[in-house]
């Protein structure tokens, strides 16, 4: 039995076994990840190379204030235009005039309070 030559079936089985073994070794070798040597200051170095962000403009703008002043001028003009027509004493005319007056006073108070807060 010992000296008997290997049959074709035995040879094929042996080859398959060898191939399976090789596959396992190959996959194991591929799964071993290299251990890189990352410099300790790498993250800090990258952070220092980041492009500078566009500086934020610190110049104050007064668009809101200008809009309020323009509104006050328009309201004043409207009040002056409506003033001659208040003699007829209609309910609509009076309500409109009171509304415009209230808005004008509101804006004046807001603007003066703001200026007072800034100084």
């Amino acid at each position, binding site marked *: 039995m010992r000296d008997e030559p290997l049959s074709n079936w035995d040879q094929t089985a042996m080859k398959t076994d060898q191939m399976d073994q090789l596959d396992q*070794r190959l996959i194991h070798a591929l799964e071993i*990840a*290299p*251990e*890189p040597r990352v410099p300790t200051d*790498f*993250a800090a170095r*990258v*952070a220092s190379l*980041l492009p500078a962000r566009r500086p934020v403009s610190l110049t104050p703008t007064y668009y809101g204030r200008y809009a309020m002043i323009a509104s006050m001028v328009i309201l004043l003009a409207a009040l002056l235009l409506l003033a001659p027509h208040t003699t007829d004493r209609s309910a609509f005319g009076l309500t409109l005039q009171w509304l415009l007056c209230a808005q004008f006073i509101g804006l004046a108070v807001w603007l003066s309070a703001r200026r007072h807060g800034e100084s």
Partner: protein
Amino acid sequence: MDTDLSFEHLVRDHQAMVFRTLLRLTGSREHVDDLAQDVFLRLYRALPSFRGEALITTYLYRIAVNVAQDEWKRRRREDRSHVSLSDETSCWEERLEHPDRNAEQQIEEREFQQTVEEQLLLLSQIERTVLVLYHQEERTYEEIAHVLSLPIGTVRTHLHRGRKKLREAILERQNNERRASCETNR
């Protein structure tokens, strides 16, 4: 300032992954620092357009693969022979060392690992990338397909083809070595 600090934190979290991926994709420790730096700077530039549809790691893998491809192109242009991982005094193969194994087995394992590394570098870029992402980085087919912008079927094909090529190359090399040692014994 806060943005810089949080980005530094992000770099620290992902630097090991970027380094080892680049190391195996390029097969060289040379310039790995610079390449990794390039990966993170590209990420920083791309962050405003990052819509959060994918994980930041997937995004980083994509950038790392692109940077490695650029490096291969640069090397081809320079026509410079690169230094193999195994040529250098690297310590990562030493991880194979195991106290229970005898020296002969360890040497054999190390030689086998070295052969795999060498043959890996002879594969096509896409096959090597798929093998590294699948086996080393343990990414799924879907993730690899997303990183490489390829259909999943193509990823599977590249993986099987790459492994087959590696197996055949290693077998051929082993047969050649066996034949050579037989001839010297005679």
